[in-house]
Each structure stands twice: as structure tokens, then as C-alpha cells.
């Protein structure tokens, strides 16, 4: 049988992960490890199906926190980065402030934020925001600085106003870099929200992971982890999707 190299590579990958899953499944069964320590994959998948209603409900809670945290990080991060880029004063004040804030371990900030903003949506939204914000600032700054000098001169020769140069040259030239920043920031926002839920919440996937593992319900812990991972992947690819509309890289 002659398969194309691509099909062959795929088969190798699939075979490898199947083997890994089977190794896990039968390793756990034959070694007699207690299922509250490490359940077999079949039990985890069964749990995922059985508990689909609560997992979906908690996923929606976490998704809401991540979504708004990320959106606000982009909505504030991009204009603030533009301000830092164009204003010497902002570069000397706002920028070092953000660098300093970024240096604080945000996990350490979580208890304070829960104290200030309560157990509800707001505190988790802020955690997601804090995790996502800095990569967006940095990538926007990098993108704005990457406008080729020869294109700037070209716009000057065409007598473009500063506003025209900004909107018609700098912003489009920065978009690929901003999108890269968003791709980094999206999974970070998920981590931020889950950390926030760990520290103080009544719901969300982070809360589910914490309560399930606390009560020895390891299968549910794994199932919730799979849900978080899937959510993170889907969110990442829904950001990466926009690359097809921003395909250029400033030469």
C-alpha cells in the first residue's frame, strides 16, 4: 500500500496518541491505582458526558469573564499603547507604571482583587484583564514602531496629515503585530479568570476544579480541566482566524 507522506505523518501522530491513551487506560487498570488519584481516560470521558450540563454552565461563567476581560484589555491596551508611543510624557509616566505593575505576580494580587470586587463576575473579569493587558500593550508598541521609515517619508512626500499617516499607515502596519499580541493574550486571559476563580468564587470552571478535587471527585476535576483546555484552544483559534484578514507583514 502506498500512502502519501502527509497521510502517513497523520497516521503516525494519531497512532502515537492512541498508544499513549491506551497506555494510560491499561496502566491504571492493571497497576490498581485508586481512581481518586488517577482515573483512566475512559472514566474521564464518561464523566465529561454525564456532567455535561454543570460543566457547560460553569464554562459559560468562565467564558463570560474571559471574554470581557480580553475585550477590555484590547479596548484599553491599544489606545494606551498609542498614547505611550506618541507622547513623551506618557512614555515617562504611564509606561514605567505598567512595567512595574506587570512585574507584580498577578496571582498575588488575586486575593486583594477578590476583597475589593467581591466573589462575582467583576473580580474575575479584572484578573483576566490583568493577564491579557500587558502583551497587548507591548505588541501594539512594537507594531507602531515597525512602520518602515521609507513609507513615512513617502507619506510626507504625498503631503499626508499626521492623522492620515496614523490611520492609513501606522495602524494598518501595526495590525499584524497587534494580532500576535492578542494571540498571546487570549490564553493568558483564560488563566487569569481561572486563577481568580481559585482564589474566590462560587462558580466557574476554576471553582469546579477546586471543589471537585477537594472532595476527591478526581474524574470531574479532569473533565473540568479538559473543558478549560478546549475553551482556551477555541478562543485562541477564533483570534487566529482574523489573520486571514490581516495577512500582510510590513516589508
Amino acid at each position, binding site marked *: 500500500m502506498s500512502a502519501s507522506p502527509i497521510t502517513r505523518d497523520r497516521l503516525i501522530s494519531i497512532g502515537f496518541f492512541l498508544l499513549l491513551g491506551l497506555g494510560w487506560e491499561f496502566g491504571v487498570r492493571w497497576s490498581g491505582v485508586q481512581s481518586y488519584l488517577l482515573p483512566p481516560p475512559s472514566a474521564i470521558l464518561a464523566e465529561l458526558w454525564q456532567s455535561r450540563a454543570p460543566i457547560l454552565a460553569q464554562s459559560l461563567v468562565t467564558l463570560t469573564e474571559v471574554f470581557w476581560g480580553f475585550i477590555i484589555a484590547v479596548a484599553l491596551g491599544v489606545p494606551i499603547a498609542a498614547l505611550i508611543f506618541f507622547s513623551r510624557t506618557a512614555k515617562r509616566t504611564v509606561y514605567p507604571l505598567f512595567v512595574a505593575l506587570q512585574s507584580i505576580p498577578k496571582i498575588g494580587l488575586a486575593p486583594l482583587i477578590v476583597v475589593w470586587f467581591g466573589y462575582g463576575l467583576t473580580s474575575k473579569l479584572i484578573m483576566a484583564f490583568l493577564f491579557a493587558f500587558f502583551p497587548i500593550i507591548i505588541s501594539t508598541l512594537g507594531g507602531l514602531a515597525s512602520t518602515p521609515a521609507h513609507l513615512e517619508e513617502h507619506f510626507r512626500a504625498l*503631503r499626508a496629515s499626521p492623522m492620515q499617516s496614523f490611520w492609513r499607515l501606522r495602524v494598518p502596519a501595526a495590525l499584524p503585530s497587534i494580532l500576535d499580541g492578542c494571540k498571546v493574550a487570549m490564553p493568558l486571559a483564560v488563566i487569569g479568570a481561572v486563577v481568580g476563580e481559585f482564589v474566590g468564587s462560587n462558580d466557574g470552571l476554576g471553582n469546579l476544579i477546586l471543589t471537585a478535587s477537594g472532595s476527591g471527585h478526581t474524574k470531574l476535576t479532569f473533565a473540568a480541566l479538559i473543558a478549560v483546555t478546549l475553551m482556551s484552544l477555541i478562543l485562541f483559534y477564533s483570534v487566529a482566524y482574523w489573520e486571514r484578514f490581516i495577512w500582510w*507583514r*510590513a516589508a
Partner: protein
Amino acid sequence: MSAVISMASVGKTFGDLRVLGDVSAEIGAAEFVSVLGPSGCGKSTLLRLIAGLTSFEDGSICFNGAEVTTPAPEMGFVFQTSNLLPWLTVRDNLLLGVDLDAAMQRPSDAAFAELVETLGLTGFEASHPHQLSGGMRHRVAIGQALARNPQVLLMDEPFGALDALTRDRLNMELLRIWQRDRKTVVLVTHSISEAVLLSDRVLVMSERPGTIVEDVRIDLPRPRDPSVTREDPAFGDYVVRLSKLMGVS
């Protein structure tokens, strides 16, 4: 004939580096003038001074009798790199210069179609720059300058990065456009044969700090085509003379 561009004792220094010495020249209406010189002689800088893109210390440059301080709408600049915006189509790149100037109006559909045809870009209006060959990108760049209908076209080694064949072809197209529109053209180049083939006058510049060492009038019949380079003995004489001036031969 009154000068469109007149330079009087122009000098330019970058830090400690004297780039242009003492440049004086006049360029008349509808003249095709090449500035020829060795690498680093300041010829590109001179063109940027004429365009109002770079400030300078000594002397003065006048365009239509007024001192040049900032880029004028009547001047079109074609850069060494084609400088197209990768996210715009050929059509939008061609019209960019017009769109950026509130005082300018987009050409009529017929005029635009004619421009596209002149440039040999028909059928590529909706393409993006990365889908074009290097020669086509340069034609778009020239078209962008022409769409503004400038009185003067300033060109900084516009075909320098292209292969010889493409370069010859674009030079002929440039010549054809010039013979039709009779704009004033100032072309910076380091190709002697290109300068002779295209120009009415060739200004030869010295090594840095650049000055104009010779103003050579090219009295070859027009319209010209590449056969001139092979068949007209006067062409060879000009090339030899300019080579000597540049210290090549």
C-alpha cells in the same frame, strides 16, 4: 525659458559629514534632466532637498519662483523602493496620492482606465502588491505619482533594483509617458547609458561633497527608442564623455 526649479549654492551637512558642496543649477519646463554621479555623492539627497523632504543649511532652492520648504502638491516623487502599501489593491495604491490630498479629485473612470492602460496594469487593478512582479510594482509607484498630475516628476533611481531587461522596458515606458505629457523630470541615476538615452541634459556630480562638475546637453533626436543605443554613434560618444567625467574609463 524661465526655470521651474532653480538651485543656488545649495549645501547640506549631516552632522560632521558634508554631503553637498555648492550646487547651482536651473531646470526648465518640460525638461528631462538626469543627475548622474558615483554612489554616495549626495545625488539622492539633492533630490530630497528639491522635493522639500529634507532641510538644508546653505543656499536656496526655488520652485516656480517660491522657496521650497515643504513638499509641494505639484511635485511627484518616485522612490528607489516602490513604496506601495501591501494592504491596498493596485487601484487604491494608484489613487493613494490623490486620496490623501483633500484638494485633489480622483480622476474620472475613463482617465483612470487610461492611466492603468498606459502603465500596462490593465486587469491587475484588484491585485495586491505582493502578487505583482518587481517591474509592475514600480509601474504602480510611477502611476501613483502621475495620478496626482504633477508638474514635476522627481525620480530617485526608480529602477535601480530591477534586472536589466525590465529596466530597459520601464525606461521606454517612462520615455513614452514623458513624450506624451511633457512633464519636467529630474531623474537620479548611476547608469550612464540610462541617463543618455532618456535625458535632455545630464548633470554630472563629483564625489562627496557633491557638486555639479559638468552640465552636458544630450542632442539626440527624439522620439528615442533603444535602437539609439546601438545605432547612433553620437550615443556612444556621449557615454564615453560622461564615463570620463565620472572617472570610469
